[in-house]
């Protein structure tokens, strides 16, 4: 009973948001008078109405959050810069898609196998890249991943088998999973994957392993000299991040029912990086807030047109520039992002209001000196 109370006090607001997300399709349906499951036509469902439209938006937020969280595990928690995160995202997407479209397997079996193989391949890819380059200085890892992702992008853009740059559509998914048939189910599935991913990451970062990740970020040489095999921990971080990004890639393919080389493109590396930095590098919630904020902004502004002097500019045309400007601004002015800045502000306020804590910190300093 007591533990429930402390849980509610600590995490109650998260539970509140979770319940909100669970009820979200129905709330939108009630508010707009639309159906949360779409409109039936014959024996098929047509995805029409505000509720299913907003479900799709949130599904994308969950997927991007997953991708950004996985990026943050590497960049924010372990201090490893990757410029090829799209590799994991796209590779598992392609594996999943190829199993569904290019093998004679039964749809259900192909889906299951695709999920397992796609995620496993992403993890293995992370292991391979890590073994090859994580021993080196950080820049080498960054450029290795950049080059590898670019190569994968060029390769799949030219590969006739997978319809080159057009990509290929997924004809059939199990009906209960298919977002064009059962979007509500798919909404809850992505929500579940996202929540599980978040909780796992939270568990991981609260564990001793997570503490080593952070120690590596702060000073790898010191972590090494204390006696940790830092390479092994960085590999672990990379493998987990790879698998999470891989899972996000598979969900993306399910949502769009399409696989294409754009999944391997720079966008899916830049976006999670941006979301992480804006939300708060090295914080648990930061990437989620970054992903939600940026994607909702994108959805909301995409079709807006602003008049500037005589010319009218579609936001979608300058979206990249806006993102870039936000990015630079955050790096220069708010390097801790939204969540990080808030945490520091709260910490400072607590300290200011409490003269005793200032004295303790002085005493602690004297001891360490």
């Amino acid at each position: 009973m007591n533990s429930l109370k402390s849980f509610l006090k600590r995490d109650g607001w998260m539970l509140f948001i979770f319940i909100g997300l669970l009820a979200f399709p129905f709330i939108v349906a009630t508010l707009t008078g639309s159906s949360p499951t779409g409109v039936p036509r014959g024996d098929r469902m047509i995805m029409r109405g505000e509720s299913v439209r907003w479900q799709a938006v949130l599904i994308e937020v969950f997927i991007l959050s997953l991708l950004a969280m996985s990026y943050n595990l590497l960049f924010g928690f372990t201090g490893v810069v990757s410029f090829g995160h799209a590799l994991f995202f796209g590779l598992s997407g392609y594996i999943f898609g190829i199993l569904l479209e290019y093998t004679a397997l039964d749809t259900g079996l192909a889906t299951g196998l695709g999920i397992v193989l796609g995620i496993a391949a992403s993890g293995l890819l992370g292991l391979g890249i890590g073994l090859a380059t994580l021993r080196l200085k950080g820049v080498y890892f960054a450029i290795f991943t950049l080059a590898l992702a670019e190569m994968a992008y060029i390769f799949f853009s030219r590969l006739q088998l997978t319809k080159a740059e057009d990509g290929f559509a997924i004809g059939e998914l199990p009906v209960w999973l298919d977002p064009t048939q059962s979007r509500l189910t798919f909404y809850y599935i992505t929500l579940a994957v996202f929540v599980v991913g978040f909780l796992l990451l939270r568990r991981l970062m609260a564990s001793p392993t997570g503490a080593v990740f952070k120690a590596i970020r702060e000073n790898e040489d010191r972590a090494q000299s204390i006696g940790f095999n830092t390479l092994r921990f960085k590999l672990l971080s990379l493998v987990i991040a790879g698998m999470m990004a891989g899972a996000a890639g598979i969900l993306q393919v399910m949502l769009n029912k399409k696989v294409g080389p754009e999944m391997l493109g720079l966008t899916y590396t830049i976006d999670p990086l941006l979301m992480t930095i804006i939300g708060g590098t090295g914080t648990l919630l930061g990437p989620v807030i970054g992903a939600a904020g940026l994607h909702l902004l994108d959805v909301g502004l995409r079709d807006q047109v602003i008049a500037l002097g005589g010319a009218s500019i579609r936001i979608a045309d300058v979206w990249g520039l806006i993102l870039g400007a936000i990015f630079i601004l955050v790096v220069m002015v708010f390097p801790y992002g939204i969540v990080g800045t808030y945490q520091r502000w709260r910490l400072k306020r607590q300290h200011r209001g409490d003269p005793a804590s200032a004295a303790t910190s002085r005493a602690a300093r004297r001891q360490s000196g």
Partner: protein
Amino acid sequence: MNDSAPVLAIENIHTFIGQFHILEGASVAVQQGGITVLLGRNGAGKTTTLKSVMGITPPSQGSIHFRGEPLAGKPSNVIAQMGIGYVPEHRAIFRELTVKENLQIAERKRGDLARRGDLIFDLFPDLKRLYGLPGGNLSGGQQQMLAMARALVPENHLLLIDEPSEGLAPVIIEQLMRAITRLTDHASVLLVEQNFRVASRLANDYVIVDEGQSVASGLIANLVNDDALIQRYLGVA
């Protein structure tokens, strides 16, 4: 300038490196034309004192005055330009640069090296022979000479010399000591030296640093006879 005013006056400085409070109130004075030696155990804060003067690890409290001017807030290149030469420990010469280039880079005005060439080669005749070789090819003693010569290229009023005798053969140390004694014609010296025998022969004044604080100071001649003080802070009899 007043004759009795010290060239360098460090007053009660506190210096942090990261979260570590390294100096917790150190005061040191160097007299015009004199050699002051910083003594103390490993990790007492001697090197940090020199780095605080240079502005490499600027102090957060206290003051440092050089020839009457405060150094607070100045970057290390500006401090150097005021006339302070730094000879760091482990002979931080540029290994890929030739001896000549190692000296050239220290020029502050065109022709510094030409003006000081005679003095440098007089003090360290070996360097003339090694002029075209990369610094990395020099022996430990030669590198130490090069590091000191480098600090002599511009007209410095004060030299900060960190552990010059470390890891060198006695013959070489003897040569370096002669050179340092002769340096005082040109500049005052703040010296960090672990070798008490060397320190006591070179210096006029001493300051003992212990756990980040200056705990004793005075004429070195008085310290030599104060066995209790030596035993307590330096652990040598």
